[in-house]
């Protein structure tokens, strides 16, 4: 157990976790998840918002077991290695809003950083604009970090506080078992299901759940973070997390080649649009919000699983943000940006700048 504990903090540890995610993200596409969307934390949380009826975009409604698995896998790892520690209270409302805007930015691009990398690994050239936007957004975030931006300390709290988001996820899973998908029907009890579109495409429930649990476990151990990969390189020239993210892209690319899932080009890419500027702009917003909140959407799920209540608030912000994104016409579609998507990106960026400029505090 001791050597396993240290292995994941090594270079090979993080690389192997990135590779594991790359393999299974590509395979999940083979097994039923949408193309270039083996795993997309933003899209999948958006689908969860849909199945709960927080938005009524009929094509994106499904209780994605991968997300549930991420949180619960991390919880299991945190307990197995005695790292579970309930903590909360570091500016939760700010984290909530950052979650909302991160989701809006990601849905203007159509993917979180994980999916940006998977789209790239699947040959979608539009993802290059998204990845550049992500780097730009994180880079702006590092300027704030250098200038003293921080959201203050969290406090150790009741263990049960740290359990709330994992229990919520467990509740979602139970709902899914009580109200399972009925072929050809949009509603099952309280849950909504997509009949067509990306929300109707998914790997078998237990396959998704088990892969989600494994990734949650491994990512908790290795601290895998796609935003941190860029941030640590920009801030400190540290390549530790970056090597994990690169491993994900390279391995997903290789598996896509083997499975015949690599289709290079810009036009008609799956669940993507070709408006380069807003692919870029959406991810600048998402990248900045992730940087200000201290983790990519996947990392926020893993942190929530190990007891970080503030990360849990960020996750809830993202799910609510998905509701806004689809109810207000902010989210993009393969036809291009939504009617109010551009305005939302600008408002989001201004809000993040306000947060970045005004929340500095001497902590040392």
């Amino acid at each position, binding site marked *: 157990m001791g050597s396993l504990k240290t292995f994941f*903090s090594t270079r090979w540890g993080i690389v192997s976790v990135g590779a594991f995610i790359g393999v299974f993200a590509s395979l999940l596409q083979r097994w039923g998840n949408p193309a270039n969307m083996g795993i997309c934390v933003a899209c999948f949380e958006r689908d969860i918002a849909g199945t709960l009826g927080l938005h009524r975009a009929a094509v994106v409604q499904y209780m994605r077991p991968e997300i549930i698995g991420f949180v619960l896998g991390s919880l299991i790892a945190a307990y197995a*290695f005695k*790292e579970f*520690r309930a*903590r909360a209270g*570091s500016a939760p409302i700010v984290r909530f809003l950052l979650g909302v805007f991160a989701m809006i930015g990601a849905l203007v691009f159509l993917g979180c950083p994980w999916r940006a990398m998977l789209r790239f690994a699947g040959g979608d050239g539009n993802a290059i604009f998204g990845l550049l936007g992500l780097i730009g957004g994180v880079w702006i975030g590092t300027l704030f*970090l*250098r200038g003293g931006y*921080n*959201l*203050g*300390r*969290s*406090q*150790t709290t009741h263990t049960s506080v740290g359990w709330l988001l994992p229990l919520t996820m467990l509740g979602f899973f139970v709902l899914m078992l009580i109200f399972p998908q009925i072929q050809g029907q949009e509603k099952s009890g309280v849950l909504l299901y997509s009949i067509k579109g990306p929300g109707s495409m998914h790997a078998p429930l237990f396959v998704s759940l088990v892969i989600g649990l494994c990734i949650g476990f491994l990512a908790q151990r290795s*601290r895998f*973070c796609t935003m*941190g990969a860029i*941030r*640590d390189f920009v*801030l*400190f020239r*540290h390549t*530790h997390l970056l090597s994990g993210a690169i491993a994900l892209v390279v391995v997903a690319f290789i598996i896509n080649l083997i499975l015949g899932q690599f289709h290079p080009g810009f036009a008609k890419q799956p669940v993507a649009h070709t408006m380069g500027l807003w692919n870029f702009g959406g991810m600048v917003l998402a990248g900045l919000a992730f940087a200000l909140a*201290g*983790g990519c959407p996947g990392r926020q799920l893993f942190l929530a699983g190990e007891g*970080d209540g*503030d990360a849990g608030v960020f996750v809830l912000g993202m799910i609510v943000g998905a509701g806004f994104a689809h109810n207000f016409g902010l989210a993009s579609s393969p036809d291009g940006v939504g009617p109010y998507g551009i305005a939302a990106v600008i408002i989001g960026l201004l809000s993040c700048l306000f947060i970045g400029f005004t929340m500095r505090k001497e*902590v*040392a």
Partner: protein
Amino acid sequence: MNKIVDARGLSCPQPVLLTINEIKKMNKGEIVILVDTDTSKENVSRAATAQGWNVKSVESERSGYRITISKEQ
């Protein structure tokens, strides 16, 4: 008297930022960093090593870890 950096309760990348800021100020000597998560412990240790400092000791405390790093010259 060692310089003490209290990074408890701070999220990524604050513990590493504070540590590196202190390293740049001191150039040599000994710094104690207090952290409260295993992630921060690993990140701070890795960052200190990358800056050419030695991780002298990592002691487990009730509220986390007490990391002592040092550099001779």
